[in-house]
């Protein structure tokens, strides 16, 4: 379970201060598929980054099964991300110098896992024949599938997706959504940030954010 209490995030100081999130209280249960929607600048990506430990809250707390991640130092937080969270980004964010396979296996190597379910993930995502290629040699859809594989490799409980279809054509987007739904059906908690109503509608729960508040 993910729980936030009075989660606030501000950027800058003084007159230039921008409040991205204002006292957000939120609970997401295990196995949920949640869409966070809102206009540009509403704070939805900020919320996702805070939940995933990519950013630190200015105020408030974030709990993962009663463990507060806001108090963790960088090493602890890294370990937390490595084992508990998988990220899928709009721009795929694969390291261009590494092959798809190396990108996918990176978290598993960091976690020093001797065995992984890589092969089954490759076949599930239909990228077995493309894993020896570099990201530049893959299409957008293939890159996003590789990114999902990377997010899945350490079998995290939570998948955090920031506009996962935003940079894809319609068909690839649909494929990615189908994948995420399958993962959710298998018990993973999936949180998707999107501004696309069609995507949001495919989720079990929709949380709308406006001006840093949950509406």
């Amino acid at each position, binding site marked *: 379970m993910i729980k936030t209490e009075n989660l606030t995030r501000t950027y800058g100081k003084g007159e230039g201060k921008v409040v991205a999130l204002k006292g957000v209280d939120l609970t997401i249960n295990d196995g949920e598929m949640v869409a966070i929607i809102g206009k540009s600048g509403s704070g939805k990506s900020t919320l996702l980054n805070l939940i995933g430990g990519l950013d630190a809250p200015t105020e408030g707390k974030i709990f993962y099964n009663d463990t507060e991640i806001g108090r963790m130092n960088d090493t602890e937080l890294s370990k937390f991300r490595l084992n508990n969270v998988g990220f899928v980004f709009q721009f795929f964010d694969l*390291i261009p110098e590494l092959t798809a396979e190396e990108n996918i296996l990176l978290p598993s190597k960091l976690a020093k896992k001797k065995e992984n379910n890589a092969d089954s993930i490759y076949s599930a995502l239909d990228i077995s024949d493309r894993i020896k290629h570099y990201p530049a040699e893959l299409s957008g859809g293939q890159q996003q599938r590789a990114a999902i594989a990377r997010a899945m490799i350490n079998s995290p409980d939570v998948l955090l997706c920031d506009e996962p279809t935003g940079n894809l054509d319609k068909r690839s987007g649909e494929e990615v959504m189908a994948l995420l739904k399958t993962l959710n059906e298998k018990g993973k908690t999936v949180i998707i940030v999107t501004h696309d109503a069609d995507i949001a509608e495919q989720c079990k729960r929709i949380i709308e954010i406006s001006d840093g508040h949950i509406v």
Partner: protein
Amino acid sequence: MERADIKALAESFGKGDKAAFEKLYQEFHEKVYFFIIRIVDSPDTAEDLTSETFTTAFEHISQLKSGESFVGWLYSIAYSKCAKHLKELSRNISNDDLEYLLEAGRLNEPILLPDDYAENEETKEQLKSIIDSLSPDMRAAVIMYYYDEMTIPEVAEALETNENNVSQKLYKARKRIKEKVEKLIGKDGLFAAVPMSAVLENLSDGVWIAAGTALAVGLTTGLNKASGGIGDVLLYITRKYWSKHKKSLAALLFSGVLLCAVVCCAFLLQRAEFSRFLDECYDATGYYSFMWLSDDTEILDAMRTDKTIEGTINVLGKTGKGAIQYEYGYLDDPYSLAHIPFESGRLPEKEGEIAIDRHALDKLGFFGSVGDEITLDTGTYTLVGIIDKDNYGHSRAFSRAADEWVDDTNIYKQSYDNGDVKYIPMIYVSPDSSQTPLYSYTMLDNIREFQNADEVYRYFVDKLGYTGDMSPSLTWKNKSLDAERSYKDEFAGKTRSTTILCIIATLISSLSVIAVMRNIFSEREGSLTMLRKVGMSKRSMRVMFAAEYLILAAFQSALGLGIGASVYFGIYQFQVSVLEELPLSGFTTDTLVTENIASPYLYAAIFSLAVLLSGYLFAAMLSHIRMPHRRNRKAAGLSRCIARAFANRSVTVIQTLALTLICFGTVFGYMLYYTTTGSFDNETGKFIPYVTTKFGDNGMFDFEEDGVEEYYIAYPAQNTELDNLRLSPQTESTCGIDDTTADGLDEAITTGRLTHTFLQYDERQNGLLYGITFGDDDMRKFIYDSSSDEGKAFIDSGKYFYGYKTAVANKAAIEQLEPYVISGKIDIDKLASGEQMIAVLTEDMEVFSSGEKITLGSLYTDNGFGIDKLTTHDTEIGAVVRLNKDAPNILKYAVTTSDRCSLLTTAQGAKALGIGNASYTEIFSRNALPANALPLGTGMEKTSYSIEKHKLFLQNASQIGSMALLVTVMSLLGFAAYFNGIGMKIRLKEYQISVMRAVGTPLKKLRRRLMLDSIRIPVAAAAFTFGGIKLMQRIMKSAYNDRQALWQESRDMADKYSPYFQVESMFNEFMQKMNEYNERMSKIGVDYLLRNQMWFIRFVLPLMIVFGVMCVVTILLTRRSFKMFTPDIASSLSKGRKRQ
């Protein structure tokens, strides 16, 4: 996808192959979407229209005429859909609404054009708005032609029109774009369109801005001409970029300006040094003197034919630059005055009267008599006496003066030595006779000046009846020839060393520039690509870059030269005002200096230009190099993955090269410092610094210990006969101590007016001593055969001949030796009578024992090998003294020579023993000395410790100053390139770092990894330098061994074919090889590279320092650079994406 592939797929599709359609869809879906969205400005509509386009294409594939025209056909469908959509829209809404919608769509973000990722938001916005403001059909033509790289026939097909129409649309579009850009430029001012202006904006000086503006006008006009009117656009973009990236501009200019300034300053310092050197040539000897042998045809020819020799040729007497000495001395000795023989007239009695020798009058061309007026360089006098030319020499004063006279004018001596004429004095009443003796005498300085060499020759032939070719030893002055020789001997090597350092510094600076330029290129890539897309030609781009960097180079050189000259001016002012040096600067226009020392301004400008151009070329080259990905069968391990993700080969190469060059440069500078300030003992490898002053440097005397501030250097007469000892007139230091001097010194010593006195035996006079005392039989025979009868008799006598340097000290100093006596007893009286001498040892050695009988002698040789004349005196060692380390330096200095063992006596003892070979006398006193306490006929220079120290400082500063400057700047620039590399690597890899962190890599792990990667660079640089030097050492050691082998071979043959001189050919061969070797070594100038046993410590030291500094700085900088990543990974990721 290639056109042939598209054609093949289209044809397959035409035949009903759905898989082919699938592939074409994948290939063109995004392109068609982007094409449509630029026209309709609504993502949803664009998506719909894209789908419709492909549906239509699928349904109507049979209408496609050929596979080749598929692209145009597809776009024509897309364009039709857009046109239809816009038409429908215009039916439903008013024209104003349509305009509004277009405007709104234009501003919609994101408009995902493939190349639309310029860093410069402003440029991006402006270009985008210009393109978007075109009419839909024009915009479509531009996008298809420039963005999608379709051909004109394809565009024509897509727009359902003909090719002419498309060309016209493109032409109009380009024209419209140009007009729009010009309009924008007009807002900001046309003349501010160059980077120089961006720089000048920060300067308040109106003159500079005006100059920059003028340049900009010229550049704009030139560029417009060269690029067919597109120059304004390019310059606008350029100006916008530079004005927004002032830091990049400063970083780019930093290296070149600094290098230019330092090169300029270094060569100005060299010019000043050369100028001072020339001046010292004047001052040291009073004139430039050239002695040459009759077979030196080069100079003889020059003398005969060169009509352009500038300056003054002084044949007789002395002259000096700005310090002409007319007075040679005073006559207050009644005996001398009473014995001056007059041909007619009398001694002068008042000022303005003069008595002159008959020969002098002849040479002056004066044919008058006593009572006439005579004009000399010193003034106009009444001639009251003519000295008898046949009888002078009877006066003691004149005898001494004559020696000096003859020595300085050998030509005269050669011509008249066989007659009675030896000297040409004149006597006049001293200018201030109340303070000085009544009479002064002089040597007729500047008796005549000649304008060129031919005049000298004619004078000697016509006036002096000289019949020879040209005198074998004529003193003359040819500054340019002397300067040229001095340059070759002294300064060519220094200029070469400086130039080498300049080249190294230039290379390092180039690396720094490459690093900055790569950054600039990547920053500008977006806007430049955009410009290319809208039709700028490559030629226009090149013109822009060439103009841009030429202007930067000119600005950089001007700034660098200004700074360099200003810094040098500061140094010069310090020299003149604080160090009280003569006002001789590197800004001199003296042609001797300017023709022989490289131009500071030209060299600085060339090196500065080279930095920018080579930096630009290499950066451009690097940006084209793409490292191919390697195909790995197996996924790499974690460590390797991280290493690959962070690898940035070009930056690493730049960093490694920079550090290696710094290491080499530092070691090279270190070598130059050592070889400039000393030499290495061949056997022990010990460094022996050159003695740069006459005091203190040998560790025997420290001025500051006793607070003596003033001293005099007395230069004795140049040619002396003492007893039976005639000293060579060809050698410089053949002075002696005569009775008067010895009396005067004794008196001074006795009365305590002289605190410390010593006479130093001249090393240059003892060339034979080793042969007599220590030589082998062959050598002894060789010397014997080369000696006169007197010399042979001496050698036959079998006596030991002691050639130890002899010191003379006063009684007080000798009495202080009592605690250090190890055998015998000091007896002052016996020392004064010459009966005894004291052996003074400075090390634990046994050379003499007290009571030992010795023969002390001085030699003279005509041919340089044997003994022609000698004086000998028997004496004994009264006491042996050992001055240990604890003995006061002042005492050591007073009673010893620089040898480990020397003989000591008093001034009276020296006189009694006939020790006459003192090269010069230094007399230390706090008070001015009376004239009669000094050897008569000597020049005397008053100086002070502080002046000598300043001279020493300047000497060292000028010797190593320019090198130190270059090494410093080199290091600065190299470090700048290196440091920049550390930051750049992290900045460029921000994206990779952020992704790694997002997937769970701790920052600590990444930091440690990058630190380790960075540390490898100093290690590699140190290793390269180490290996390089080791290689050089091996090469040089091999040359050294060759020399040693040759030496051994020569010695073996000499032993075999005794006597020695019979193997002259072998000796000559050996000497030739030695010279070749020495020449080679001197060119490299790092002779101590040969000393294997010590190189380790000496080279490792600077390397370790550089290495240590680098490692520490690397760690600190990496840590610091990493701070920008914490704690917000999300924003780092976003920034990193932009860079990607």
